[in-house]
């Protein structure tokens, strides 16, 4: 089941929370939704899940518009809202069976589903407790369990790993990855390694607009041509001469002398490998000693920072 978002706009008062964004999610894809706080991630998710109506634009899920078929669409979506709201007075199992009934799971299959979810989310020991008595990590698992109980084709998870400890984060990521093989998943987060670890595609959104869209590799390429090469030279005193001879190399586009060490340069070239070979050959020819040559990749953090601060 695919998701098509078309020119979606949502205005709160005078502020445009989401400003005419469009994107598609293919079936079986895990899309990471990235952006600073208040960028419009949650708002977009609330519209996709039919909680709020957009001011303009449309979302089509498997060809059905949210404006007409909201009940059918809701049945196909599993949603974990931001901050994971839960009924704290209810026992875990009672809550899950309540959600299953609301989602229209058949009566005789509810029991089976409950057992499956308790297993999948590791709730075995906590299943008879009231939700209010659970720790944050377990509550998060209950939140995930309620989102998945009706085996939806689409999962929308708003910050699924917030408040979890590192072990739990790894577990939940594994779970999402596993589910993502059969389902379409949109997850939002501002933990950058998380999107790299789990998502097939990344969408960066800032001030209600999409500022980047692609895989983590393609985003890196887009930003500064895929990083730079850091080298350290010994055997030549004249740094200006070093600088100009590196500049003269065919594939090099930019040479950046490092601030900490005058013999260290950050070199940007069109294609990493060719540039490395050229630098090496040059050093051999000039009889300089190459003390260090490290290809440095642009980090997702840097791309994020570049795209979302201006």
């Amino acid at each position, binding site marked *: 089941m695919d998701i098509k978002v078309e020119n979606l706009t949502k205005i709160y008062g005078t502020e445009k929370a989401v400003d005419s964004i469009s994107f598609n999610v293919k079936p079986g894809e895990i899309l990471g939704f990235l952006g600073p706080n208040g960028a419009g991630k949650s708002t977009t998710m609330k519209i996709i899940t039919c909680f709020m109506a957009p001011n303009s634009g449309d979302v089509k899920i498997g060809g059905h518009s949210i404006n007409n078929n909201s009940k*059918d669409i*809701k049945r196909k979506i599993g949603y974990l809202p931001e901050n994971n709201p839960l009924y704290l*007075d209810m026992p875990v199992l009672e809550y899950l069976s309540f959600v299953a009934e609301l989602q229209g799971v058949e009566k005789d299959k509810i029991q089976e589903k409950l057992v499956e979810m308790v297993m999948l989310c590791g709730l075995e020991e906590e299943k008879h407790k009231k939700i209010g008595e659970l720790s944050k990590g377990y509550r998060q698992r209950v939140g995930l369990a309620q989102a998945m109980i009706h085996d939806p084709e689409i999962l929308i998870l708003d910050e699924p790993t917030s408040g979890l400890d590192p072990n739990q984060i790894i577990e939940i990521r594994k779970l999402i990855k596993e589910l993502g093989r059969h389902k379409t998943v949109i997850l939002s987060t501002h933990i950058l390694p998380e999107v790299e670890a789990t998502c097939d595609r990344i969408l960066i959104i800032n001030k209600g607009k999409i500022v980047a869209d692609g895989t983590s590799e393609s985003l890196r390429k887009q930003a500064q041509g895929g990083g730079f090469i850091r080298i350290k030279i010994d055997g030549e005193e004249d740094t200006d001469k070093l600088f100009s001879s590196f500049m003269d190399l065919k594939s090099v586009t930019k040479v950046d002398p490092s601030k900490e060490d005058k013999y260290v340069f950050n070199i940007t070239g069109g294609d990493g490998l060719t540039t490395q070979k050229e630098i090496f050959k040059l050093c051999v020819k000039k009889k300089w000693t190459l003390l260090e040559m490290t290809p440095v990749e642009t980090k997702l953090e840097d791309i994020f920072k570049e795209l979302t601060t201006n």
Partner: protein
Amino acid sequence: MKIWTISLKEFRTFFDSLTAYILLVVFLGLSGFFTWISGSDIFLIGQATLQPFFSVAYWTLFFFIPALTMRMLAEENNSGTIELLLTKPVTDWEIIIGKFTACLMLIIDALILTLPFYISVAFLGNVDNGAVISGYLGLILISSAYIGIGLFASSISNNQIVSFLISLFIGVFFLIIFDVLASDLTGIFGGVLNYLSLSTHFQSISRGVIDSRDIIYFLSISGFGLILAATSLSKRNIID
């Protein structure tokens, strides 16, 4: 049957959170005290009638019901669980009606628990059974009016105390203020206020006179409250 699922869940929550037990004890305690021991009770009147109980319940329900309804939507708004509920395949109306029936079921439970009052009175003398049935019907109708008001009050605030006070505030108009104003005024205005006053309608029904106009009155207050509650629930969709 999404409505039934929701009302069953709400009904269970009353008992999970002890609200139900406390309120049942308070309701039975208060109405029992004023019906049997307070002084101006059944024994003072000296008739085998449940009339004193009905007029006491009229007041206890006035406090009892806002305490039930206050958390219904205010808590959902406050904790964000409303988002959870509304992104499930249910409509706003199914949620409102589900919550309404849950409250009404608890009230009916409370009223069933007052049946010993009737049995005791029946031992004491000849009871007018028609008046008893119509009195209970009146209490159920008045409860549904209070629940309608209470759900509306709960829908407009995130704070339970605020919604409790708002529903008392609205309730007081129907219970007392319209009545008092109507007695001072004459003409159309006085007539309208007299019609709006709850007590006018409740008195006749608790005496055993079942008039369709009274029934319509109670049901329309309740329906109006529910419509307002549903409207305020759907205001998230309003595009300005």
